[in-house]
């Protein structure tokens, strides 16, 4: 077995077979769905399905708190979860850069395997390609997922109404700041840790509230700000967030101060933003706080009548301002 990925590992020949047999099938093939065909025939669940796909490129692909493998599984599983579905099946497509070490590849695959097992998702199909050195940053992963919709949940921004409360399940911005610190080699100790984790337990725990849960989203790229805009965009509603209620981890806050980052714009990978009926807000918070994934849950704002589509921050010192949509690439600032 060679020590590094070569172009030929993506060529369809013996080396590719070796790669797939030794590294992929060894982990994911099982009785029911072996031998990992290109398209999986799924057992009919007899209910409505949710289907999603996502591509993952992150530099560096290993960072404090996680790696691209865990990220790729959680990202897709969480998209299904916040759509109100139980994540079931996963496809994994790998794009490997020539020269990637097998040791690194194994760590990522192990991480995919462990995370899928944690969620109870099964990897049922996939693909592997190798590109010449310099054409990818180590490896890229695309995952596609299928989930089974939970009865009784009807989620979507169209269900949100005035008087609803906005809730977040935990600290903001940990993933984005962890990756940025790792990428920019910022000399901080301990480095902020990514929050990358499955959120399905949080969703399933509040399913019994039914229609009182209006909307859920995982605030990934673009952060809380982008989710808040998604909720009110094009509707005769506004969202008011309380700066003093926004939960943040001290280390993450510290780095954000230094780099001039707005944590509302920074990605989480293991949180849920939910909009719920005012009458159940306290119960949802209590439910989540009893779970390891939701210990930091808080009400952070309100849905109000008003200038449509606006997101307003009530600042800690008693001012107020609009919250912008994030504008693309986040960069450390000195200004």
């Amino acid at each position, binding site marked *: 077995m060679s020590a590094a990925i070569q172009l030929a590992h993506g060529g369809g020949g013996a080396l590719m077979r070796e790669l797939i047999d030794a590294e992929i099938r060894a982990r994911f093939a099982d009785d029911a769905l072996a031998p990992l065909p290109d398209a999986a025939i799924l057992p009919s669940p007899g209910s409505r399905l949710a289907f999603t796909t996502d591509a993952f490129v992150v530099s560096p692909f290993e960072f404090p708190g996680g790696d691209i493998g865990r990220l790729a599984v959680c990202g897709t599983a969480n998209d299904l979860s916040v759509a109100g579905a139980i994540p079931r099946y996963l496809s994994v497509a790998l794009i490997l850069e020539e020269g990637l070490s097998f040791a690194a590849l194994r760590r990522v695959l192990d991480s995919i395997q462990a995370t899928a097992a944690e969620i109870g998702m099964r990897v049922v199909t996939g693909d592997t390609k190798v590109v010449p050195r310099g054409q990818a940053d180590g490896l890229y992963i695309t995952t596609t997922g299928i989930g089974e919709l939970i009865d009784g949940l009807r989620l979507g921004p169209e269900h949100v109404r005035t008087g609803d409360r906005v809730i977040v399940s935990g600290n903001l911005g940990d993933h984005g700041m962890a990756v940025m610190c790792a990428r920019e080699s910022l000399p901080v100790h301990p480095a902020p840790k990514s929050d990358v984790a499955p959120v399905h337990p949080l969703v399933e725990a509040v399913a019994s509230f039914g229609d009182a849960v209006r909307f859920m989203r995982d605030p990934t790229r673009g952060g809380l700000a982008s989710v808040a805009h998604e909720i009110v965009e094009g509707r005769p509603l506004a969202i008011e967030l309380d700066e003093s209620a926004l939960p943040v981890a001290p280390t993450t806050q510290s780095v954000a101060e230094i780099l001039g980052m707005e944590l509302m714009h920074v990605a989480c990978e293991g949180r849920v933003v939910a909009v719920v009926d005012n009458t159940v807000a306290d119960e949802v918070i209590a439910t989540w706080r009893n779970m390891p994934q939701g210990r930091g849950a808080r009400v952070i704002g309100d849905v109000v009548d008003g200038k449509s589509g606006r997101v307003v921050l009530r600042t*800690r010192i008693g001012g107020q301002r609009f919250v912008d949509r994030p504008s693309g690439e986040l960069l450390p600032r000195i200004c």
Partner: protein
Amino acid sequence: MIYLNGFRDPLAAAALRARIADSASRLSAERGPVRLMEVCGSHTMAIARSGIKAMLPSNVELISGPGCPVCVTAPGYVDTAVEMARRGAAIVTFGDMVRVPGTSTTLAKERARGATVHVCYSPAEAIAHAQNEPDREHVFLAIGFETTAPAVTAVMHQAATHGIPNLSFLTAFKLVPPALQALMNDPDVALDAFLCPAHVSAIIGADAYRPFAAQGTPCVVAGFEPLDILDGVEAILRQMLDGRSFVENRYSRVVKDGGNARAQELMARYLRPIDASWRGLGTIPESGLGLRPEFSTIDAEVRFGLPQREGKPNPKCLCGDVLKGKIRPAQCPLFGTVCTPIQPMGPCMVSSEGSCAAEYRYAKGAA
């Protein structure tokens, strides 16, 4: 962290707000709106982030000043850096610079076309990058106000003394006092007072504003935390009520009258005042710092034989008039058409908190 959070207390903010309202109500009987310029882009950012404008009475106007040294960096500087990158040099820069437009491109666009652009938090990273790739020229974009210049100069000092042969510096440092003087000299600019920058003042000292106070303009040095800013505004209003103008240092926990002597000495060893071109304001005499000729070995312009280009600011850009408060952003012919936050022309659009960027965003947000 008491020295941050203590200066963000809501109740003290409410108290300061009430005092500002009281002072402003006593002023308004005598005159029209008070126009205070917050000189520094970091003040502008902090004011926006804390929603401070919404806390001020309607007859107190905060005017954003020349902004940040990044926003006022002239297009020709970016063109020169791009040319160095095209000749194979790796560019090392603060993140703020990568979206600043040159005549026809930005470093972000050049990076997508294959240029090497390292974004750094500390200028010291330039040395590490240069040592990692010893066969390649590295150019650090040495921009900044007086706050940043000493840190960059310390790295110049290391590069010069330890001999990092493949690292040079493209300088475009800017100085705050000459820009303030230029604004005061402009008969079209009507300003009542300066809210003076926090960390520029830590280096140059509060005494640097004495000439402006002597010309009748109250100058208050304030920190960047919300209470500092409200406190600074309140101090300015008090001076105006008393009919006085003097330099008042409300950031005495950091700023001394004479500033940081050690930093000043280091800068004086390596840098000398030069005329500098400000995007939006034009050339202001002795308003920048360049490397002294004896350090030409680390001067990127000398090493590449590439003196900084003139560059072509869009001739229709009226940022200068916006900065000076002569026109509203929407009165500029480029506003919202040629010039947008994605494709900015002048500093007021380059900076996310510049007057034009803010007006563009809120106009769109309301739609």
